[in-house]
């Protein structure tokens, strides 16, 4: 219960909104770590703090970042969605089917990708609520199903967008040298943040994570809102799929496994609690940036790929431990 510590909790209590309070310190901590990483890498290598490298970091954050934004919603309810990575792939394959196989216009492809994501989210949400299958299992199943479907639908081969040159513009058109994927990521972050803090979806989202039974007994249609939240997560996965396909100028059906875990890691580093009721979009954005800054910086310092993974894993554990320590004291 009220095991809030003195300094941290006092500082937090000064903040106006309840939802902001809980994650505030963690966000400050995460943000400080991000700045520190950037400073350390900048001092270690002159190649790090350069415009094109920073843009590269942003670009590599974008797709995982969008997945993480979506995952934040489900995780705040106390659930989890393990299928976002392969749903993303499935969506990009569907875009490929619509645009390349059926030769329909790009906007229809985009719509199809988003709808595919929404449909996958709906199925997950339906399994979790109506069938009472634990989120971990339901979305694990969805992860495998969509992974398989991607291969089936594409015939196990990549689908290229060579005949629709405009398609790669979705992610790679530039403004001031910044690719559009980066703008999409930050735009969606702002949107997600608004949904979470200013709409009733967001309020129900936190209520579900805080105490689902009390929410149900308050006359809230818990099933409906939970499905909505899984759909939101699915839509974000769909958008990520479109961004990914655009960036690679192809839909790669065997990609995507493991992305869900990176997205969850970003969410968790950002201070969102896996037990639900607590979290923020700003935290997730910072979490996603920390992951890609770390990967990028280590690569520039010529740390071998395999060791990069080891270090990122350590950071995830450390971040969660720091959060637990803060909460305990």
């Amino acid at each position, binding site marked *: *219960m*009220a*095991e*809030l510590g*003195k300094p941290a*909790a*006092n500082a*937090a*209590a000064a903040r*106006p*909104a*309840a*939802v902001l*309070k*809980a994650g505030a310190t963690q966000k400050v901590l995460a943000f400080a770590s991000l700045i520190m990483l950037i400073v350390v890498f900048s001092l270690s290598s002159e190649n790090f703090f350069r415009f094109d490298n920073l843009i590269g970091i942003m670009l590599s954050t974008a797709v995982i970042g969008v997945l993480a934004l979506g995952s934040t919603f489900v995780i705040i309810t106390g659930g989890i969605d393990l299928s976002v990575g392969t749903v993303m792939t499935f969506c990009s394959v569907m875009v490929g089917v619509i645009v390349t196989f059926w030769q329909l216009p790009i906007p229809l492809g985009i719509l199809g990708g988003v709808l595919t994501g929404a449909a996958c989210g709906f199925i997950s949400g339906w399994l979790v609520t109506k069938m009472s299958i634990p989120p971990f299992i339901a979305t694990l199943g969805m992860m495998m199903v969509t992974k398989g479907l991607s291969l089936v639908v594409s015939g196990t081969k990549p689908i290229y967008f060579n005949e629709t040159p405009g398609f790669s513009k979705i992610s790679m058109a530039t403004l001031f040298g910044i690719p559009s994927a980066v703008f999409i990521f930050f735009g969606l972050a702002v949107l997600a943040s608004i*949904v979470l803090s*200013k*709409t*009733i*979806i967001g*309020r*129900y989202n*936190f*209520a579900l994570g*805080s*105490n689902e*039974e*009390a*929410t*149900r*007994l*308050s*006359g*809230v*249609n818990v099933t409906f809102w939970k499905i909505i939240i899984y759909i939101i997560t699915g839509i974000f996965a769909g958008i990520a799929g479109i961004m990914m396909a655009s960036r690679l100028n192809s839909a790669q059906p065997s990609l995507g496994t493991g992305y869900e875990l990176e997205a969850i890691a970003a969410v968790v580093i950002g201070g969102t609690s896996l037990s639900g*009721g*607590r979290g923020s979009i700003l935290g997730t954005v910072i979490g996603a940036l920390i992951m890609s800054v770390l990967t990028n910086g280590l690569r520039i310092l010529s740390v071998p790929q395999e060791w990069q993974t080891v270090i990122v894993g350590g950071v995830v554990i450390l971040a969660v431990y720091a959060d637990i320590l803060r909460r305990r004291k």
Partner: protein
Amino acid sequence: MNDILVSMKGIDKQFPGVRALNKCNFELKAGEVHALVGENGAGKSTLMKILTGVYRKDGGTIFYKGNSVDIPDTRTARELGISIIHQELQLMPDLTVAQNIYIGREPKKYRGLLTDEKKLNEQASALFAELNARLDPKAKVAGLTVAMQQMVEISKALSFRSEVLIMDEPTAALTDGEIDDLFRVIEQLREKGVGIVYISHRMDELKRITDRITVMRDGCYVDTVETSGVDVDDIITMMVGRQIYAVSRPDITEVSEEKVLEVNNLSRGTAVKNVSFHLKKGEILGFAGLMGAGRTEVARAIFAAESPDEGEIYVHGKRVRIKTPADAVKHGIGYLSEDRKRYGLMVDMDVKSNISIATLRKYRKAFGWMKREAIRKEAEERVAELNIKTPGVNQIVKFLSGGNQQKVVIGKWLTRDSDILMIDEPTRGIDVGAKAEIYKLLDDLVSQGKSIIMISSELPEVLRMSHRVLVMCEGRITGELSREEATQEAIMKYATMRGDARVVAGQG
């Protein structure tokens, strides 16, 4: 025996937004039963959590057997010999009694490779013999009564050779016979020289069992008195520091004959059997009975928290089908659970979110945008109207006292304009002063035309509040008493009336 075991001096504790303890003192002698009383939020639990190492104090000193000690965590407390038995028992239901008591300290055999179950059970038996407790070491905890589980907790505490035993509302879930047993055990412990801190709201118990009483109010130490030298009214006055709302109800508000709710032949499993009754406008209908009589289950079945097997429900004379709690809420029914933290509140969210959760749709603009200003205003109105003590509507609910949390739940349903409220144990875990306020609030609500079903296990509460009393036993309604007929004796008669003649032949 007059050696002082524990002495806490000038203890301070600060929580976000609240000064929980302000220079509090407490003293416990060996072989003494020392009551710690005060309203909820007075700081009793906080003080005891500091003594048991759950919280760290911000100021003050703790002396244990004359030495100043630091208690940074619960293990240190236990090693010193300080144990606490929480109101919510903390046992592992799927392990046996003996396994629970010696968890983490099991005797080993074969060089520590295996646990020695035989020795484990022998140790537990020896412990029970010492306490004259009739417990089977091999019994699964899940199958024990609450009273027996409590004995397991007490035995566990004593197995650590505890000299200080803190009991938080130990009788809350016990029957009278079980309470007598518990008091016999306490008596034995006292003779052994164990110091017992006894936290309770039940005044009659304090007179029966305690030697001294320490009173706290609003995080401050008020006084410590010899139990024999004070009467109950003095203690209550010290606790609340003000005159409390009269115990007897001043006058009864008129109840109209209009039936707002009618329930016919409601059944669910073995918990609710053929329950039929009606509720009138402006009425408080008391539901009395022993624990497990099925009263909560009736309320939850009406609200469709668990769907009933059969039964008809009429609201304002119209037949309604309630399939989910959302349906019930639509028909103007609100349910306030006895377990507010589990079923009533989102304790990690703020006051305004909790008050508005049942009404959010009303505040929806295009694209699901919330009218946040309106939500805040309405919550502030509710806070003023119900006199909820909180620094503001942005305060996180878990930092409020029990009475104020209950008001937040009431506020939630008032915001929803529910005109039928089903309130389960309205004052459970709420202290004397706040209790009176809740009573007054309920009186006010019915005089404004709301109708209330009040489930209560406290007979004085049932008698004081109800216009009419229904008594249940084993899932059936066994009696209906008008306000004039309702006495403790009459209620108890019906509450223990099994297989009643009123039951329609041929069922169940």
